[in-house]
């Protein structure tokens, strides 16, 4: 029973990790929180719902979701994040924070206005269960865990092994120095932002695929889990975000099984407070300056 619960937790942590690495990459390179990050997942999922209901083929729906998500993400970057980069000090952090909270609210309520404010059926789902050695696992969750693991591995390779990854790390560590080395830091930031939006978009669709339902407000709980996973794992660390997501997935599953689903988020917050009390820089905080 306990093993079954832990398995469920691990399976659901893939999506949490996808959201968490997006938060941590944006924080790493821009020094700000993008509170609308998880909403990009909702945008992608609803774009697919819209495209399918309009009679388009699945592949066309996916392409449309990509375009819509990227356009929305770049608009949020332009309107809510970029203005803050003109400032130094508190304003440079607070403007994007408040701006992206606002952008998230607009996206959630726009989705609710267009599609209604209840959860609706996602056109593709893999809700069937398979048996693995005596345990039950949802096909959709297996797919989302595998897809997340592959994407996270590719991301780690991009950041640590490629020339563009070196530029990303340079901009994150010292933006002026990156510029004097001829790196167009605005361009690196934009591409990084687009990558995180794509990851969030995929995460949103994986949620729909696994649970068969999406709601305009689902981003709120995924944002909380992504943020907590980032903080627990160590802000700015990609492996940390993955570790944090695994921990949260496990704790959440155990909390639900022991205390019922109304206690779902309580366990997550207990973990957050425990980590902040014992190891405030997170489990895998990269030493000094990321």
């Amino acid at each position, binding site marked *: 029973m306990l093993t079954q619960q832990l398995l469920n937790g691990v399976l659901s942590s893939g999506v949490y990790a996808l959201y968490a690495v997006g938060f941590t990459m944006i924080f790493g390179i821009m020094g700000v929180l993008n509170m609308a990050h998880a909403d990009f997942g909702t945008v992608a999922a609803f774009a697919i719902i819209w495209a399918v209901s309009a009679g388009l083929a699945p592949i066309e729906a996916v392409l449309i979701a990509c375009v819509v998500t990227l356009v929305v993400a770049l608009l949020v970057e332009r309107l809510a994040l970029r203005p803050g980069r003109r400032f130094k000090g508190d304003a440079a952090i607070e403007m994007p924070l408040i701006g992206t909270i606002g952008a998230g609210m607009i996206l959630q309520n726009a989705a609710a206005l267009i599609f209604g404010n209840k959860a609706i059926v996602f056109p593709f789902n893999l809700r069937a269960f398979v048996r693995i050695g005596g345990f039950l696992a949802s096909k959709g969750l297996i797919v989302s865990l595998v897809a997340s693991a592959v994407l996270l591995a590719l991301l780690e390779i991009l950041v640590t092994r490629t020339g563009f990854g070196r530029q990303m*790390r*340079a901009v994150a*560590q*010292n933006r002026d*120095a990156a510029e*004097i*080395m*001829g790196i167009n*830091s605005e361009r690196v930031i934009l591409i990084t932002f687009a990558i995180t939006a794509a990851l969030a978009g995929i995460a949103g669709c994986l949620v729909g695929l696994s649970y068969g339902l999406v709601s305009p407000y689902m981003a709120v709980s995924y944002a909380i889990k992504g943020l907590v996973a980032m903080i627990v794992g160590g802000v700015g660390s990609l492996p940390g975000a993955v570790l944090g997501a695994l921990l949260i997935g496990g704790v959440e599953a155990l909390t639900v099984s022991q205390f019922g689903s109304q206690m779902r988020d309580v366990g997550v917050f207990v973990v957050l407070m425990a980590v902040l009390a014992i190891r405030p820089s997170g489990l895998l905080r990269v030493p000094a300056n990321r």
Partner: protein
Amino acid sequence: MSATLSVRGLRVDYGAVAAVRGIDLTVGEDEAVAVIGANGAGKTSMLRGIMGLAGATAEEIRFNGASITALRTHAIARAGIGYVPEGRELFPGLTVNEELLLGGRFLPREERAAKLEEIHALFPRLRERRNQITRTLSGGEQQMVAIARTLMTRPRLLLLDEPSLGLAPVIQDVVYRALAMLRRAERMPMLLVEQNAHRALDLCSRAYVLELGQVIRDDDSATLRDDPMIQAAYLGD
């Protein structure tokens, strides 16, 4: 003679405080020019202004004949100005080799390897330390990385800000020997800001003297070195 760098009417203001108040200067082809002056004379602000980092205004800045007045910092760097800032400004989490590869990322593979070889010959220490994170290097080694990664971009002009600052005299010698080598071997044009006026005047043939954000003298190094007023104010003897 066409100038490598010509600056007209450069101003840098920090709020109500003017750090640089209308500087004109030129660096000729193949020329090494020093800028000396006391703390707070505006030397660093001047270099940051040229690089587009300080929110500076200028009537015109030309580099090898083309205007760079309106360009952003990375475009100025790519035009061929290599800037070695005060305090090195390294990337604390990168290794020595990663810093150098970042500088050499536009070079074709063979050329990059050759350039790396050249730099290891100039600073053998960097070969020994190639896989070390730059944060853990000594100040002198960090200064070598700062100069070396800039050279990897194959600049056509070097802007150097206080390369001897905070270094032991022995290490200062190493850094200045490397700069002298660059002058001899490649005739690399330089604009060198330095509080240590002795070293600056030895390396450069000409110098500007900055005071309160303005140029107050502009003369040959030899003339300045023999000037009693300059000796009293900047050479400390």
